[in-house]
């Protein structure tokens, strides 16, 4: 079906190098690309425009069209057909994030990331960060080449200098330290091992900014294995999560979302999620029951659950303080389904994780919902190692520090200690590809490739291998970190050969299909993944008796925190930015947080009641210890707690991300070797400054209107149309004077299952990447000028201080009786014979009437010249540099770039529909099932969005449309949308 790239050698061919030279201006590819603006200097319409300006006379005869050149290849590369997309399987690795992907390239440049459906981990789905990563490739702020003390230098001279210095250190019996994030590439590990061997006395320390070291330690204690297990949410009927945002940021959210949503099928199997947390996280928003607690209450709650379970299972009794919340129902449910539940905690305190482990053991979950056969390898760093390293550095015991892809000068809680220590290190080298706070302090910069330019392999989970391959020749004078390490280790081998050798040596034996290592490697490369069928069993040691648990220390922590004046701060990662690696990515910065709907900022979330008591208003600046942050009143935030996101306030990441938000890493602390993501404050002070958030949704209640229709599981089982009674009523009462128009050939439609949608915002970025949606910047979002074609509406229901949350992705509904079409004076929007609501940008002259008349408000107006496609000069508004030559490479050539002053909107990815239809015609066949996928439906990790032909009665879409849960948004207006929603079914306790 898809063409995966397979001819390896031609990858390195000279033509390709030529095509992608360092200076993009000289690139014929770019030249073709540059013409992709809407209006050339003299287009036909300009004539009348000029007439409008009274310049008609001068326009004659002097006006000739600009001569455009057509530049062909010198030698046509066999794998590229101009104008056709080529897909390559690869892997996304960024710090601890992993995703198996397929990269769509057009004319030699990657433009879109899709999930690799063959992957057993991410199963063809992606996250917003993965979708946005393609834009990082075209970040002009990346290092353009190696540097020595801030000055560009050649690779050769730098190599020589560093190698000699390293050798000197080895001779002097000094210490060389390599600092990386968790490395889960087997080949890279092998390269590092070679390096360590070559330079005796060197150490390799892994450091993860968001630490799971307490879990690792606890698992070591409980199960004898210092690993993160393989959580199987798809096998769990009851999930109790205490502060773990596993749908948003915790460990492997894409995988977990896919698993979780497979259990949100009310017709068949329906799991239950209970979230106990302080911040309203994405997971909490999707929970069936959510309990608000202060972080300090976490141990007490867990202990109480533990106590009850212990009593019931092992009939033992322990003394614990009373639980601040009622946990009897939870415990009862947990006990009622042994081996079918998961209890997880987001805490980075070892004792807490020990209790969690023991609870899971008692509930017989180990080996069933929590497996160790293919444990997660993306998180393996211990905080204590980093503590040790800094101690050594301060003592001057480290002679050389090689930093790769970690940024302790920003993410380490005690960054001053690190920077001071760094000054005492003789040789400091950074191997990261992008500027950050740490490598602004080092002597040598040996920049790494972007992952789309790199060769690599990965083992994100045990026995789940995948390969990464370059889909574009390097844009800048960079070199892959592993290549650098190989070079320094004295090897003449390229990393690509190294990987091939490694795979020939280590992977070949795990399979029997191919006998020839080259074929094996090529086939794997084509497929992107290698998951040997039989995974070796890993036995888990049974944990010891629970009496060994050190309750005392936990209880000490529990203490008496009910005092009103103690304010607890909870630090978390946002879905978009995480620890802040991709802070220089405008797409991610502009992605509204799924819950708060704020972008371009972090903020101190407080509960409404708390805000009232402390007389806080939305946007008031607060002084929290050393830092200042604006207040955001967040329903669902536990009283007395403040939630604030890490990963903001960067200073050295680039033009886009610098000075966005507040840096709060320094407020973290370390306790018994693990970083604690909470802290306490005695008081908060208003500074008097106020601020207006760039928030895309400011009204949070549905005002009793039936946008999102909900029902409980029991009601649903009794009546499939439960909560959706209005649908039948509307069907009966909607009448038109005109005969209904039929679309007999194709009738494209969509179904969005609100029970499955977690609101993770992956679709928003997928849509942005596919459809060239412009970035407008913070100020314009504040002025309600955001451009996303697909937005996710988030509503709160229930009480203000403990709301339930519903998500509803809203895109153009492609109404059959479209209100927008009637009012456009120039017929720039009309209906196609296939039921699509078409928007013709070049016809639009921007009355905005259609947008006024759109009840869904899904039409977006180009308020300014955001894209550089306008006709008038000197009015570009592109603060984030999205129209620069390099950044523009990410644009999809199949989608018109919209000019200033036109309306745009979701097209149901009509370019994909057209391409797939054409392919079918070319191959003389009917369309395959699910052959046409929109960008949003293809990458949705929850499988919540289904696209298809409503005339195809056998399709998945038709099944969903005929379900009792189906309704249309604002169906009482009789707009007859082609987008259908399915009611949200909740599985609450009680």
């Amino acid at each position, binding site marked *: 079906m898809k063409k995966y790239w397979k001819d390896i050698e031609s990858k390195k061919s000279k033509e390709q190098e030529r095509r992608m030279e360092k200076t993009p201006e000289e690139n014929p590819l770019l030249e073709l690309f540059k013409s992709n603006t809407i209006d050339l200097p003299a287009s036909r319409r300009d004539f009348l425009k000029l007439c409008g300006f009274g310049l008609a006379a001068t326009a004659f005869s002097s006006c000739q069209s600009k001569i455009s050149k057509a530049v062909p290849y010198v030698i046509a590369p066999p794998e590229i057909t101009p104008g056709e997309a080529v897909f390559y399987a690869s892997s996304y690795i960024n710090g601890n994030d992993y995703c198996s992907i397929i990269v769509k390239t057009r004319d030699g440049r990657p433009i879109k990331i899709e999930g690799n459906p063959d992957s057993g981990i991410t199963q063809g789905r992606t996250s917003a960060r993965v979708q946005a990563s393609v834009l990082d490739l075209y970040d002009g702020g990346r290092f353009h080449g190696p540097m020595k003390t801030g000055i560009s230098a050649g690779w050769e001279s730098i190599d020589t200098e560093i190698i000699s210095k390293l050798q000197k250190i080895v001779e002097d019996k000094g210490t060389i330290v390599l600092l990386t994030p968790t490395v889960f590439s087997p080949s890279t590990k092998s390269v590092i091992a070679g390096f360590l061997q070559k330079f005796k006395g060197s150490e390799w320390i892994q450091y993860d900014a968001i630490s799971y070291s307490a879990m690792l330690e606890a698992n070591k204690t409980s199960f004898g294995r210092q690993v993160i297990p393989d959580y199987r949410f798809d096998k769990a009927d009851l999930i109790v999560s205490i502060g773990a945002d596993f749908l948003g940021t915790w460990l492997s959210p894409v995988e977990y979302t896919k698993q979780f949503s497979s259990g949100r099928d009310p017709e068949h199997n329906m799991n239950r999620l209970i979230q106990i947390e302080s911040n309203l996280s994405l997971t909490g928003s999707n929970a069936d029951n959510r309990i608000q607690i202060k972080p300090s209450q976490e141990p007490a709650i867990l202990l109480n659950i533990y106590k009850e379970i212990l009593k019931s299972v092992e009939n033992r009794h322990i003394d614990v303080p009373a639980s601040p919340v009622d946990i009897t129902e939870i415990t009862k449910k947990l006990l009622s389904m042994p081996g079918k539940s998961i209890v997880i905690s987001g805490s980075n305190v070892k004792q807490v994780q020990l209790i969690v482990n023991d609870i899971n053991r008692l509930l017989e979950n180990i080996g069933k919902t929590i497996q160790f056969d293919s444990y997660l390898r993306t998180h393996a760093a211990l905080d204590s190692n980093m503590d040790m390293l800094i101690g050594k550095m301060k003592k001057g015991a480290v002679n050389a520090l090689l930093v790769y892809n970690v940024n302790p000068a920003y993410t380490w809680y005690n960054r001053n200690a690190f920077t001071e220590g760094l000054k005492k290190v003789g040789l400091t080298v950074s191997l990261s590809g992008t500027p950050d706070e740490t490598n602004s302090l080092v002597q040598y910069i040996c920049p790494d490739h972007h992952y789309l330019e790199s060769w690599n392999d990965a083992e994100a989970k045990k026995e789940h291998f995948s390969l990464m391959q370059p889909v574009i020749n390097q844009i800048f004078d960079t070199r892959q970190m592993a290549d650098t390490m190989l070079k320094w280790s004295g090897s003449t081998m390229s990393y690509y050969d190294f990987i091939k050798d490694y795979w020939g040596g280590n992977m070949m034996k795990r399979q029997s299909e191919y006998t020839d290592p080259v074929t094996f490697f090529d086939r794997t490369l084509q497929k992107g993944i290698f998951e040997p069928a039989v995974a070796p069993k890993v036995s888990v040691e049974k944990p010891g008796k629970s009496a060994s648990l050190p309750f005392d220390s936990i209880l000490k922590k529990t203490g008496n925190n009910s005092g009103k004046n103690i304010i607890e701060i909870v630090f978390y990662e946002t879905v978009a930015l995480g620890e802040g690696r991709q802070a220089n990515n405008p797409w991610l910065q502009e992605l509204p947080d799924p819950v708060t709907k704020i972008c371009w900022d972090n903020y101190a979330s407080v509960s409404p009641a708390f805000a009232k008591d402390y007389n806080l208003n939305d946007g008031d600046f607060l002084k929290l210890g050393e830092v200042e942050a604006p207040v955001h009143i967040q329903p669902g935030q536990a009283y007395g707690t403040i939630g604030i996101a890490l990963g903001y306030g960067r200073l050295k990441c680039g033009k886009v991300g610098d000075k966005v938000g507040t840096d709060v890493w320094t407020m973290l602390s370390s306790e018994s070797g693990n970083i604690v993501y909470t802290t306490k404050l005695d008081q908060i002070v208003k500074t008097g400054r106020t601020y207006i958030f760039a928030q895309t949704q400011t009204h949070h209640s549905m005002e009793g209107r039936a946008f999102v229709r909900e029902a409980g599981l029991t009601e649903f089982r009794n009546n499939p149309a439960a909560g959706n009674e209005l649908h039948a009523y509307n069907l009966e009462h909607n009448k038109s004077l005109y005969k209904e128009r039929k679309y007999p050939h194709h009738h494209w439609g969509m179904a969005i299952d609100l029970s499955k949608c977690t609101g993770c915002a992956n679709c928003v970025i997928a849509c942005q990447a596919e459809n060239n949606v412009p970035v407008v910047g913070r100020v314009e979002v504040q002025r309600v000028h955001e451009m996303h074609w697909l937005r996710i509406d988030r509503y709160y229901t229930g009480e203000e201080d403990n709301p339930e949350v519903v998500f509803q992705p809203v895109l153009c509904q492609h109404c059959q009786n479209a209100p927008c079409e009637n009012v456009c004076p120039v*017929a720039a929007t009309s209906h196609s014979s296939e039921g699509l609501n078409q928007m013709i940008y070049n016809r639009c002259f921007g009355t905005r009437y259609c947008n006024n008349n759109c009840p869904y408000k899904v039409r977006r107006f180009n308020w300014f010249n955001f894209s550089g496609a306008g006709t008038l000069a000197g009015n570009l508004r592109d603060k984030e540099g999205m129209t620069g030559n390099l950044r523009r490479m990410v644009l999809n050539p199949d989608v018109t770039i919209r000019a200033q002053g036109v309306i745009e909107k979701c097209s149901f990815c009509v370019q994909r529909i057209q391409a797939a239809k054409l392919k079918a015609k070319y191959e003389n066949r009917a369309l395959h099932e699910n052959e046409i996928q929109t960008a949003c439906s293809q990458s949705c990790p929850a499988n919540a969005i289904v696209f298809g032909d409503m005339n195809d009665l056998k399709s998945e879409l038709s099944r969903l449309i005929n379900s009792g849960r189906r309704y249309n948004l604002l169906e009482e207006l009789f707009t007859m949308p082609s987008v259908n929603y399915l009611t949200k079914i909740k599985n609450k306790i009680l």
Partner: protein
Amino acid sequence: MRSSSYISIYFDDEVPMLQAVKKLLDSKEKITDVLSPFPVHGLDEALSIKRSRIPIGGFIFGALGAILAFGFQAWVFTVSYPLIIGGKPFFSIPTFIPITFEMTVLFAGLSMVAAFLIKSRLKPDISFKPVDERITDDRFVILVDTADKESTLNRVKSLLSGIHTLEIR
């Protein structure tokens, strides 16, 4: 239109002028024209001017405008470029009404004004010379057609002796 020779009778009020008109017509004098600074009530009847056919022209052109406008819209939506808009049928009469009405009014209005200007031979003309510059202020003038100026002048003078005239020449 103006005969080569005529006499002008000047008044400073419309009442004596009307009387004079009646008298002149009664005595079979040929009145070429009556010039006045404003439309004098009763003069039309006195001169037995036939009701203008301008409104008929207006009606015809209005009807033409209506037919053109409706026909054009219908042609555009059904033949030239049928587009599916808002789920409506291609030939949906209600949407054609407003423009049909407006074009009716425009055609009718402009045609009537054009007819008025043409019939009255009014056009921008920088070299125009009025009969008397006071007519547009406060003079009322009866122009009597004559072949023999001298005799007509005397005849008219005697005829209008009882009426307050300013000047007869």
